[in-house]
């Protein structure tokens, strides 16, 4: 068996590797004939129309990925594999990186255009699933699920921590300015800026509205389609939060400050938790109506969770519904990185800006936390580390804070406290997105 496997295998590999090796067509011919002879052995009599069969193989070969692969495709596939590797090996946001990584591979399998295969070809399955991204339908559904799984008690117990979520938004607007200076036009810059919000769905939602390759500017130019790069950048850096934030924390926060223990949050009544989503929904969307799809669904989901009467709906929203949307969103966003469209100078710039935005956002949060401490007395003082959680990237940044605090004092559990700025960061980014949208939409 080994023997035949080998003979057959070597020959067949030849068929596909040939062009790579640059062998001439003769070797091709005898490949065919010989492999056919093997087929013969199998069950069919193929003695006739050998030539045509060869024609057929050649005809078919032009459809294979081997014939159409570009270095860009191979590079992107490699990146996809790296995403998956990071997700599995280092447990960085695997629920995001693995679907996206798989999507990147799927999106970069070389194909012949016009066959309804690619994600950008109308009528292809991927294109139908991508619809939810292009139209910004998936993000609000994910926010519904987030709302149904988020407990805002720490925020209700300690409202002033909301300001940390606001402070981190400096990252959004700074990146926005940076993008402008790098020559992106306003809507594109706005979409890029939101990467600093460290919130995937918000980033996808805003970019699908501003940098969707459809809108037309006053001067007649069409905005670029940056949904792919922005989403990938946002999710990549969200996954890398455990790498990005710790050094900044050690840089900006003194040993003593890191040791600060915060007094346990007060107990929050169920009634408060029921009122919160309603009030927050009305207030935030009154201020930033363009964020309605995001904030409306977020607080609606939270109401389902806290009402105490709709547990079954909340449970579906935070499990199966969000899972389904996450799968579809992840794989399509990944697939949207088709090399010929994705590998551009813009994408590189966006990745650079993204890195900076996370740094600025983190610093903003940390510094504003120190600033707040100036006004806080005694055991009301907050541990400045939790400022870093203001970037959202829920819940990783909160867990990073938790871990960092433990390094300086193994008995200092900040997770509960860090959740407050963390969810505030989500709200803050959504509001910021709404503001940008109302200015540039």
């Amino acid at each position: 068996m080994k023997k035949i496997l080998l003979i057959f295998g070597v020959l067949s590999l030849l068929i596909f590797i040939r062009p790579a090796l640059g062998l001439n067509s003769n070797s091709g011919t005898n490949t065919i004939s010989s492999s056919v002879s093997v087929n013969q052995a199998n069950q069919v009599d193929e003695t006739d129309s050998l030539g045509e069969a060869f024609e057929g193989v050649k005809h078919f070969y032009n459809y294979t990925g081997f014939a159409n692969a570009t270095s860009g495709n191979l590079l992107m596939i490699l990146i996809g594999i790296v995403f998956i590797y990071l997700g599995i090996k280092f447990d960085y946001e695997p629920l995001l990186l693995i679907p996206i990584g798989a999507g990147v591979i799927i999106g970069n399998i070389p194909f012949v255009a016009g066959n309804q295969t690619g994600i950008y070809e109308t009528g292809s399955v991927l294109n139908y699933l991508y619809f939810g991204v292009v139209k910004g339908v998936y993000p609000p559904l994910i926010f519904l699920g987030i709302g149904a799984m988020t407990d805002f008690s720490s925020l209700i117990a300690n409202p002033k921590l909301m300001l940390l979520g606001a402070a981190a938004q400096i990252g959004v607007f700074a990146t926005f300015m940076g993008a402008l200076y790098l020559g992106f036009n306003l809507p594109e810059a706005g979409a890029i800026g939101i990467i600093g919000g460290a919130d995937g769905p918000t980033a996808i939602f805003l970019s699908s509205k501003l940098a969707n390759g459809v809108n037309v500017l006053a001067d007649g130019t069409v905005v670029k389609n940056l949904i792919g790069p922005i989403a990938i950048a946002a999710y990549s850096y969200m996954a890398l939060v455990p790498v990005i934030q710790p050094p900044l924390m050690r840089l900006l926060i003194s040993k003593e400050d890191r040791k600060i223990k915060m007094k346990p949050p007060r107990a929050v009544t169920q009634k408060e938790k029921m009122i919160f989503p309603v009030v927050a929904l009305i207030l935030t969307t009154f201020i930033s109506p363009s964020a309605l799809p995001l904030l409306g669904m977020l607080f609606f989901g939270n109401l389902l969770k806290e009402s105490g009467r709709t547990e079954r709906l909340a449970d579906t929203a935070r499990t199966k519904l969000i899972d389904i949307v996450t799968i579809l969103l992840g794989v399509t966003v990944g697939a949207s990185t088709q090399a010929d469209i994705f590998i551009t100078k813009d994408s590189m710039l966006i990745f650079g800006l993204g890195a900076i935005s996370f740094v600025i956002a983190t610093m903003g949060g940390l510094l504003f936390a120190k600033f707040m401490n100036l006004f806080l007395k005694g055991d009301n003082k907050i541990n400045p580390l939790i400022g870093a959680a203001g970037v959202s990237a829920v819940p990783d940044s909160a867990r990073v804070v938790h871990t960092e605090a433990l390094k300086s004092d193994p008995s200092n559990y900040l997770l509960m406290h860090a959740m407050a700025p963390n969810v505030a960061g989500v709200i803050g980014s959504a509001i910021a997105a709404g503001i940008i949208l109302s200015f540039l939409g």
Partner: protein
Amino acid sequence: MTYIPLFTDQISEGYVILFTGLLIVFTSLLSLSLLFKYGLPLMLYIYKVITKRKDKKISEIKVEADRNFTGEIAAAIGAAVHLYLDEQHDHESAILTIKQVKKPYSPWSSKIYGTQNRL
């Protein structure tokens, strides 16, 4: 949707958005925090006055929550979670193994997993 510029210069408008944006983000989150620091207790008080303590159901729902959910517990949970997170991977693999041994063949439309699914 076409975009009509407010200002001739992109950069200068950028700054406007920068400042306005930050201002508004802060304002909104601040007003939210103020609302919950001062507004909410007031609302609850008024509500109580109106309903003259007649609201059984909701109070029931919340009561136990209050009792148990003191700060100490919160801290305790923090600790628990911490320990928990460290052990997690072993759990993960354990679960994996079980799954693997439980159905190493279950493919689509099998009568088998119709049941597995129930188990």
